[in-house]
């Protein structure tokens, strides 16, 4: 039957350090596979920011005994839809396919990760594309703000741009990036997560055949460090002021994780949650306003975002800060119940999609060292009472966010930094 509560999570660790984690969804025709490697902008070589991004693109330009064209045509012919890229700490590659395509497609995906051709003649295009994507940030203030906020919030390499820098990209050459590939792409610490309509035995033997004889370990991901909270304004000729806040949250394996999850959902979950009600519904200040948790290995933080026209940006920021602060005074019983129902309902819907499950399991394995079944998350969320959440919130210090605004000159007292900072 298709009851997610009984679904079992299978996992195993290969001798070379790869962890395979799987959830069988026998009623589905599809299979989603998520590959996660601890290769991100945080471990880019010094002065070569953007190397992980260029590398990810270069990997798909021919692998094994196939050139770029033949390699991509082969995967397309199997109907394998790919997505992914290099992030802060990890590179993620997701592949969705019809379940019957697994035996034919897994060796190709293994070729891409293990035997990319990385030919000189493809390097220029891979870098060019990364440079264009970096330049495109200028026309996308919302994305640009995300990068500016990370740069300000983190003092560790986590603040580096996912898109690299102009100087970093310009400094790359084929030999250096090939050396970077050899140093960072390795099985140790890699996760392969899969969900869908195949059996554990089939998946496990296909993964073993394609990956078991790989050897190596990547450099360690550095510790997170953050700045003393400040406010920054970056001037830009935009129509709205884009507001971003960041402050510390709980690390993903923390005992109070689910209490934080519920509290954050009261702040910004459904359409009746506090931020949406106070900013949009009661005051009409913004179309879009959200707060959400983000997890890195051993570290968690909260991001809050909104966009609003310049004359209303101060008020919008004030309301956001007030709501974030007010959360410390606790939540009401009915708010908590709505948050709980929302989370439980989302879990069931996540359990209907192979792609959602595969990527959630990959993240779980990376962040927590184990894949969580939906049933387990459900029982953890169900067990938390109002007192649990409120006593947790009472013990938290009042958040002191780093605030970055991007937009026309502002009346706020923020330190204005040069608009060239990207």
């Amino acid at each position: 039957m298709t009851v997610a509560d009984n679904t079992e999570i299978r996992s195993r660790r290969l001798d070379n350090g790869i962890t395979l984690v799987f959830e069988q969804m026998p009623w589905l025709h599809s299979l989603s596979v998520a590959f996660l490697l601890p290769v991100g902008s945080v471990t880019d070589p010094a002065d070569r920011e953007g190397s992980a991004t260029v590398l990810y693109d270069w990997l798909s330009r021919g692998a094994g005994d196939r050139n770029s064209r033949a390699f991509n045509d082969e995967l397309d012919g199997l109907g394998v839809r790919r997505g992914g890229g290099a992030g802060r700490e990890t590179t993620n590659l997701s592949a969705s396919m019809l379940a019957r395509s697994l035996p034919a497609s897994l060796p190709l995906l293994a070729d891409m990760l293990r035997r990319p051709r990385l030919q000189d003649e493809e390097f220029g295009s891979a870098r060019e594309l990364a440079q264009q994507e970096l330049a495109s940030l200028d026309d996308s203030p919302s994305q640009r703000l995300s990068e500016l906020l990370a740069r300000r919030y983190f003092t560790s390499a986590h603040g580096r741009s996912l898109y690299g820098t102009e100087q970093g990209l310009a400094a790359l050459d084929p030999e250096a990036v090939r050396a970077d590939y050899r140093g960072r792409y390795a099985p140790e610490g890699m996760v392969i997560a899969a969900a869908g309509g195949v059996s554990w035995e089939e998946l496990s033997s296909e993964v073993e055949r394609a990956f078991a004889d790989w050897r190596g370990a990547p450099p360690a991901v550095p510790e997170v460090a953050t700045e003393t909270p400040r406010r920054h304004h970056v001037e830009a000729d935009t129509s709205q002021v884009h507001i971003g806040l960041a402050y510390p949250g709980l690390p993903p394996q923390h005992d109070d994780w689910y209490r934080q999850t519920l509290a954050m959902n009261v702040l910004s979950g459904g359409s009746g949650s506090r931020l949406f009600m106070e900013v949009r519904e009661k005051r009409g200040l913004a179309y879009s306003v959200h707060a959400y948790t983000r997890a890195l290995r051993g570290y968690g933080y909260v991001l809050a975002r909104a966009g609003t026209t310049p004359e209303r940006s101060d008020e919008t920021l004030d309301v956001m800060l007030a709501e974030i602060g007010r959360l410390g005074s606790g939540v009401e019983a009915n708010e908590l119940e709505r948050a709980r129902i929302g989370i439980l309902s989302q879990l069931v819907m996540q359990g209907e999609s192979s792609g959602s499950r595969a990527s959630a399991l990959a993240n779980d394995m990376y962040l927590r060292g184990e894949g969580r079944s939906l049933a387990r998350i459900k029982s953890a969320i169900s067990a938390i009472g109002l007192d649990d959440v409120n006593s947790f919130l009472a013990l938290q210090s009042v958040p002191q966010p780093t605030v970055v605004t991007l937009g026309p000159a502002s009346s706020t007292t923020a330190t204005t930094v040069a608009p060239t900072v990207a």
Partner: protein
Amino acid sequence: MTQIRFHHARLPNGLTVIGEHNPAAQSVAAGYFVNTGSRDEHPGIAGVSHFLEHMMFKGTDRRSAEDINREFDEMGARSNAYTSEEHTVYYGAVLPEHRGRLLDLLTDMMRPALRESDFDLEKKVILEEIAMYQDRPNLRLFELGSRRFFRDHPLGNSVLGTPESIGPLARDEMLEYFRSRYAPNNLILALAGAYDWDATLAQAQAATEGWQPQPVDRSYPPLAPAAGEDHAGDEKLKRVHIGFWAPGPSAQSELRYSAALLASCLGDATGSRLYWALVDKGTADAAQVWHDAADGAGAFMGYASTSPERSAEVLAKVKETLIAAQSEPPTKEEWERSRHKIATSLTLHGETPFGRLMSLGNSFLYNGAYQSQDELLARIMSAERDDAAEILADGAFDRLFAMTLGPNGKASR
């Protein structure tokens, strides 16, 4: 395998109720699909469909805006709404035990109070949404370009409207639009996933008993699209955003499946002709084509993004690639690859009740007929390559319209 069943009824007031029951589903998705959008607006009320969509969440005779938001949350609903040129859709996905309550809420919302105070407050949110779009040049490009391509055809109407059309809009104008478009015979109530059909039907019947049918029309003027090039200068932009349009099959055309496959061969995000011509080489960071099948008309549309120095080169390459396809239609191998790509995407999309609801409702609005996931896949897998040749033989890409948005650099034209 599980037994998928289709349900269909038409209530005496004209409301169509349809459902696709999947006994294996763990959730149910339900929505009202309204056959109205910006194409049904006159210039004086541009943006009213979308503004009205927001107002439908602002309360009814029985509920305040806060009640509506709270009730969606109490059911743990994944809910939202959207407005396009042709449709306005309100939907929610919940666990099966909340089906009756979700239906009650969505149905009540279809008869909104449209209170003046809510109208004034929500107008600010709409103006913020328009301002947000101003900071997204790719979206702005399509508003500008569609207007020019479709010329006086209503498919070129802006969904959001402008500050100039929304600013002076009065509540009574919205009410008049609502009355003329939200008659039960212009709405479809659709469900997908786990539900009880008899209970659903009885509930829908009781809840909509007072709704009065009335004639609703939509105009279908002939499409006489623009060709050539146009440019909108914006010195704030660092990149050139290129949109292009050419006439194509409609949502009712038998050629629509082949048109989707053809668009994939020419301009899928990866592995297509435009991908190899531009993105693979790093000349453009995006170059895509898709087929937009609309009610009684259709178009191939595309988007590319590049630096000002290269925009002329990119646009020339786009044209060259599309025009070359007219004499060199997709090969057997290209066609086969696109079939498999689309089949995988459709399979993933169709795995959730929410995904099925969207296909179910939209396809019924366009064609008044049910199409199962298996039938849809079969149509894609059996679409003939000869059809693509037939579409291309029309020479649509010779009459391509291209719009660029970006700085007025010396090389940008």
